[in-house]
């Protein structure tokens, strides 16, 4: 699914990612760890197609319609409600019967009761849950998740863990984390940066 050879990222003279080789098979689960500033986020942005490597070759075997990306930012509009955000992305991703899928995801991540409230009124944890709904909305084949447990309370983290448990083995994952213990049991490969 993903094959990278010597991919490196520089911004001017600053090196954001040291050269990395990577092979992630279809339905694999790669856990990326490393200290702050080691290049985890940069690597995930390269894999998602949001940045281009300065050097090396990178082949990701899905197009962007089949990719789900969770970044440091939740990638949702503050002034729209949770429902309106998912409706917009459901349309842009051409999700069939997206209203039903949105309802199911909001219910699952405990946001149904606040679906008509603006995201600006959500707590950081609720916003992260909504971001997870957005990532899963179009049922992606490849999930690139940058520290997905960030800001989630125990209940939210538990909901995420259950979603990961269900999808692992039938989807390909690249997950960066500062809490490897949460995803260690799912990992088929590990990469330590830094």
């Amino acid at each position, binding site marked *: 699914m993903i094959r990278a050879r010597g991919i490196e990222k520089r911004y001017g003279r600053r090196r954001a990612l040291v050269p990395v080789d990577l092979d992630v098979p279809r339905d694999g689960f790669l856990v990326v760890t490393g200290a702050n500033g080691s290049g985890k986020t940069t690597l995930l942005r390269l894999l*998602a*197609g*949001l*940045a*281009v490597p300065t050097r090396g070759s990178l082949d990701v075997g899905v*197009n*962007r*319609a089949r*990719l789900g*990306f969770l*970044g*440091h*930012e*939740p*990638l*949702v*509009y*503050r*002034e*729209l409600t949770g429902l*309106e955000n998912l409706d*917009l*992305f459901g*349309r*842009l*991703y*051409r999700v069939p019967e997206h209203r039903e899928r949105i309802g199911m995801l909001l219910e699952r991540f405990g946001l149904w009761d606040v679906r008509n409230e*603006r*995201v600006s009124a959500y707590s950081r944890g609720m*916003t992260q849950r909504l971001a997870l709904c*957005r990532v899963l909305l179009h049922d992606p084949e490849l999930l690139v998740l940058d520290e997905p447990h960030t800001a989630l309370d125990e209940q939210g983290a538990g909901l995420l863990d259950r979603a990961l448990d269900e999808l692992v083995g039938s989807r390909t994952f690249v997950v960066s984390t500062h809490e490897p213990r949460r995803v260690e049991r799912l990992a088929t490969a590990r990469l330590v940066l830094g």
Partner: protein
Amino acid sequence: MNYLADVAALTRKDLRIELRARDTLPAMLLFVLATLVVFHFALPEGTGDDAAYGLLWVAIVFTALLGLARAWVPEQEHGVLDGLVLAPCDRSAIWLGKTLATLAFLLAAQVIALPVFVLFFAPLDATALAGVLLANIGICAVGSLMSAMAAAGRARELLLPLLLLPLAIPLVVGGVGAAISPDGGRFLLFLALYDAVFAVLSWASFEYVVTE
């Protein structure tokens, strides 16, 4: 059809955000009205209408600049632009949606500002109004692209006027020409040509502005 549906959804989203946040349109309205009032007192008595038409265009360009400076703010908050760029829709739909929303804000400001101009300064005939409409399209089309470029930089407040004002000069020439020239139709044709060329260029190049 999918393309138009995407554009409609993205435009609707911007209008909805503005209806709730009221960040952009009230500022544009206040700015254009304040500018016209200042010009009213600054312009010496007995100055001809031609000078007033020039001042109208100063007000229009800077009002548009104010709206365009805020155009991508909702996308910058929470990094939403990355989400839009990753969506499988044609990326030019993002630019077109933003252009249409900015055009709607500019038109809404002008619905108030143009009658005030007529009241304070000089009449506006059909040719002058057609010039305003065509110049609006041009400035929003180019401005949405320049604003996206500026938003990616660090000094975006500084960068946008530097990028946009040189490109807006032909629009000012066309707009003022349409208002004061006896052969205003020629200037309207010039503005329409500018709109067509720069809209196509902006439409085609937006993808390269929002991706590496």
